[in-house]
């Protein structure tokens, strides 16, 4: 008997937990009067920031946030700041990216997270290896809470997706919050009107 059969059999033969129905998730998720305000407030507490701009001002807005960053990648429609093509064969070649400007699908008010699907980008590591990140989201794409968020997610044709809430961080040394652990050292969410 292989280990799979061994494990499954021992569960089948010894499990005494009485089968209960799979619970329906009640419609109890918190909702906010101003979803953007709530999102902006939360993301500040996790080391990020939320801004709003018009589509034609994307370049100007991002350029003013990051004046010294040299290697920049962008897969966002309407942004022309990118000077580095991420469509390379080996993800290790992304190691010198100073700023990644990426597309976010929607934002979650409850916790300051943005859902990233990685549809218009080859290597997943882009979101983590870049020194700084700007996620661009449509202003009307904000949901209240995680229950609503998962209604918008589907893996039937996708192999990847991540919620990103602010830049990377750690508090492993005496509970002191340090922004910028292994992933980006700063992170903005830019809502386009």
């Amino acid at each position, binding site marked *: 008997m292989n280990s799979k059969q061994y*494990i499954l059999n021992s569960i089948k033969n010894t499990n005494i937990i009485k089968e209960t129905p799979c619970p329906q998730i009640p419609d109890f998720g*918190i909702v906010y009067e101003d979803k953007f305000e709530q999102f902006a407030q939360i993301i500040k507490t996790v080391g990020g920031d939320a801004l709003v701009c018009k589509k034609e001002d994307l370049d100007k807005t991002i350029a003013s946030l990051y004046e010294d960053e040299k290697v920049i990648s962008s897969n966002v429609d309407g942004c022309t700041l990118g000077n580095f093509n991420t469509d390379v064969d080996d993800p290790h070649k992304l190691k010198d990216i100073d700023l990644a400007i990426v597309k976010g699908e929607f934002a979650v008010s409850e916790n300051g997270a943005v859902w990233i699907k990685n549809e218009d980008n080859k290597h997943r590591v882009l979101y983590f290896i870049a020194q700084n990140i700007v996620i661009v989201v449509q202003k009307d794409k904000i949901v209240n809470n995680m229950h609503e968020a998962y209604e918008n997610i589907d893996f039937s044709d996708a*192999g990847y997706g*991540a919620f990103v809430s602010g830049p*990377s961080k750690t*508090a492993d040394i005496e509970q002191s919050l340090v922004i910028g*652990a292994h*992933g980006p050292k700063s992170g903005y969410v830019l809502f386009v009107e």
Partner: protein
Amino acid sequence: MSNHPQEAAKFVANDERMHWHDKALWFVREKRDLASKSIPEWEELRSVASEIKTHTLSKLDYYLEEFEKNATQKGITVHWAKDALEHNEIVYSLLEKNKVSKIVKSKSMLTEECHLNPYLEERNIEVIDTDLGERIVQLRNEPPSHIVLPAIHLKKSEVSETFVEKLGTEKGNDDPTYLTRAARASLREDFLDAGAGLTGVNFAIAQTGGVVVCTNEGNADMGASLPKLHIASMGIEKIIPKLEHLGVFTRLLAKSATGQPITSYTTHFHAPVVDGEMHIVIVDNQRTPFLASKDYNKALACIRCGACMNTCPVYRRSGGHSYGYVIPGPIGSTLGNFKDPKANKTLPFACTLCGSCTNVCPVKIDLDTQLYTHRQDLGAQGLLSKQKTISMKITAKLMQHPKLFDFFGKTIRKLVPMLPKSIVYSKYNIWGQTRDLPKMPKNSFKELYKQGLKDEL
């Protein structure tokens, strides 16, 4: 073999450090309270989470098979390991096949439980723990002392000393930002160098065949996305039925753990990277016996948030290392004692039965009840110390015979004040080693009560 009272005594001996540790954990507990209060439906959320877990565990074989089927369709290879050794062998064979000599690992209590690091190191594979706290304890050759905050027992000056020696940082510079940046720079090289990334798993979704990994530092994502090979290890209990259930668990996990609204990264891996391979190792390692136990099966619902540790008055004052089991605190005490009662028999007593752990547990595990039940099981198994066994027997006798109890009480009240200190506080009086006995009253409660009744009449 763990010995909690003995190890805790060493920790408590440094009074200043004990209070510092206590405060640090209580600070995290308070953050959890604030986060949970920000959501009006918090208690309902806990109930639903608990119900989902009970349902899943009741059909665990079904969901594991569904998960394997769906993961395979996504191009992920699923392996099954009945114990720690088989898990380690599977991981090693994958590394060997891909000619990998260096791996980057993100936090995984399962690989700690399986002692994967020494297994691989003996076979000449360099293992780099990449979570900052885990890296610190790895460089110091220590186990983690907390499942979410691995280096919570260390002061920044100690981290600085370790980094001076191992990473060449400035002597005396213990600024957390400086130290974190130094680790970041050093670990970047490791990420770029490694041939494979190993991660744990927070949730495995049967319906979609993918796994979710939650981190703040981005280390799991660097490790899982940069090398071509990603191996994820999970215990059989990590399964949840549907994607929508993540709505419940992602709301509870980080808020319960550190009081954050959510972890910085909540990554859903449902396929390998471009031209790469993704493997998932499903591990039993003594988990199935929990399903057969009416008293302890709920312990398998644990989502490893660490809230029970942060709130535990014993954990906060004795430190994670005093438990001597891979997972400390209330949940570790019940898991460890169930798996190996002989080796971990002191752990159910590292508990005041205050019940705070059960009150904060996001999946409502009956932790204090389990620890209380363990004590009785240990008695039945004959694993209690002689002193405890004899005193319990005497107490039981007295409690069953009221006349004898009265006589014994009267005698003690008279006798104790006449005895010399050396006898009253002899080595058999463990309770009295750090406390004074109360002054013996003239009358027993029973006598006072009867008197009171008379007075009222």
